[in-house]
């Protein structure tokens, strides 16, 4: 040691995150979540053995933002693409990054079957209750009463159904080893999101099965809100409909039961706000 005082960086960009500026809107939490995924990859030393699968949505360019090998998948098919990679190269750590339109609408079949096969992949699922990229149309995750480009009078349950609770559904599959829902609306919750993502990757590293973290996220642009309003909307409107917690954990016995989570979701009130 040449110096008694070690330089300890308080803050520096994760090495797994590319040094380019992203195209995300101001206040969009896609950026924060990217950073967290990259931090976890750094911490677990995954950059050299990971293959990330970008999906179709605002995060389509994720293949430009991470330093590991990347593939870009067709809309909704990222879990199938990840399956193809993982099955032929099981030594790799394979993860997908998907929006709610991608994963919970066009790609429900792929994600459910990946979970039931116990596919050893990690899914980062961004639930922002809307189709961001295409200009703010309704998603299966859109809240009752939420106004979007295709639900101009608010989502009507009798016409287009109720918000989908994908994590609760997936937790029922035996192949699912770790399923959690977290939020991004304040630093404490970002910290919990980080812990969940780390746990999800560890689940894969230990060969336990399918892992997914659903992350309640913002889309200030299409919600017609300021970034601060958007974070508040997540906390006040989304969290009651989408209860946070761990729905399945191969390690702990204390995982919250999906049935309890479902009941909590049912009792949630219709949302206000949204464009």
């Amino acid at each position: 040691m040449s110096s008694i005082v070690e330089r300890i960086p308080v803050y520096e960009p994760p090495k797994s995150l590319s040094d380019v500026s992203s195209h995300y809107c101001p206040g969009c939490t896609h950026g924060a979540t990217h950073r967290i995924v990259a931090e976890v990859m750094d911490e677990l030393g995954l950059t050299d053995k990971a293959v990330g699968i970008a999906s179709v949505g605002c995060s389509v360019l994720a293949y430009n933002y991470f330093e590991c090998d990347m593939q870009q998948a067709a809309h909704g098919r990222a879990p199938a693409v990840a399956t193809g990679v993982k099955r032929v190269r099981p030594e790799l750590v394979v993860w997908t990054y998907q929006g709610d339109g991608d994963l919970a609408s066009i790609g429900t079949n792929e994600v459910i079957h990946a979970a039931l096969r116990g596919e050893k992949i990690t899914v980062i699922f961004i639930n922002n209750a809307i189709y961001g990229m295409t200009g703010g149309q309704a998603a299966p995750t859109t809240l009752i009463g939420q106004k979007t480009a295709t639900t101009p009078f608010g989502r009507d349950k009798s016409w287009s159904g109720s918000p989908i609770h994908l994590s609760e559904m997936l937790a029922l599959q035996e192949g699912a080893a770790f399923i959690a829902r977290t939020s991004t609306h304040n630093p404490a919750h970002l910290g919990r999101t980080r812990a969940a993502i780390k746990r999800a990757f560890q689940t894969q590293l230990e060969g336990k099965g399918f892992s997914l973290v659903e992350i309640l996220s913002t889309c200030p642009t299409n919600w017609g809100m300021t970034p601060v309003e958007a974070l508040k909307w997540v906390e006040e409107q989304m969290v009651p409909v989408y209860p946070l917690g761990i729905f399945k954990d191969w390690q702990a016995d204390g995982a919250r039961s999906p049935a309890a989570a479902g009941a909590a979701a049912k009792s949630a009130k219709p949302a206000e706000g949204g464009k």
Partner: protein
Amino acid sequence: MTKSASSAPAGGVPVLMKGNEALGEAAIRAGCRAFFGYPITPQSELPAYMARRMPEEDGVFLQAESELAAINMVYGAAGAGVRVMTSSSSPGISLKQEGISYIAGAELPAVIVNIMRGGPGLGSIMPGQSDYFQATKGGGHGDYRLVVYGPATVQELVDLTIRAFNVADRYRSPVMILGDGILGQMMEPVVFPTEKPAEVAKPWATTGRQGTRGRNVVNSLYLAAEELEAHNLRLQAKFAEMHSNEVIYESIIPEGAEVVCVAYGTTARVVKSAIAMARQEGIKVGLIRPISLWPFPDEAFVNLPDTVRSVLTVEMSAGQMVEDVRLALNGRLPVHFYGRMGGMWPIPRDVLAEIKKAAGREAGVAR
């Protein structure tokens, strides 16, 4: 799981095998190490064969939840640098088109098998050739081409499958085997090669950086118009190269031929029988049998002898390849068409009658 003893058929000597199973074995011998599929008649023996044989070769067989998933698993595995195949029949191949377009756009090598049945819609499980347009003209969205092979015998199915893997790797492009239900179900003696497949380096594959290189990206998205056009120009240059290098066909034109028949796959075998019958009756008839359906063997139509008065195209469709025949001839000769549909196939006697019409040996036929 312990590796089971190999049930591979012997190489270098004739063995009797069903088309679909021989195709699977050929893929394995070509170094195919992953197969993703979804059940559909009349190709189901192929996935069943792979389910049994792949574990013996340390390969992957996985029954996907749909054809959509299967083709995207192919995308992932091809992107990760292994030889991979999927198979289906007509309706399933329709579902795979988006994925095929992505595979072509991202320049991934893969082999896709279509054992065609009658359409449109759910159609029937009986054989057909009505996916020719879909296979050779694009199928999915965007400007791309597939090398498409139309085998006529089980041996050719084997040889072309092995060739398909090599061509796919050479051009980093998907290749399609376009067979029909008769060929898939038929048993014939085949000889498998004994030589091992060549190892192909794939430095572009997403195999994990492993501390040895920068990251690799498999992608077909180019948001800037100039970049996408440049990408397309690169693809077009590759397709042009495939177009000049990958043509294969059989051509038998006897001296004094009056009519030349054009047919591919199983239909060509029926046509050969009809040609033999015509010969008995003193009518000399030639045959052009495209083996690569894309690139189409235009050159086979260039120097036909002066004795040829017309061309007769025979297909198990309403007339799809006949359009390429007309393009190749560019108006030089009249082109007749005879086709059966819906799972019916032409029989030699009926083809003979059409040959006679084309030769003007029957009254009332305009030439």
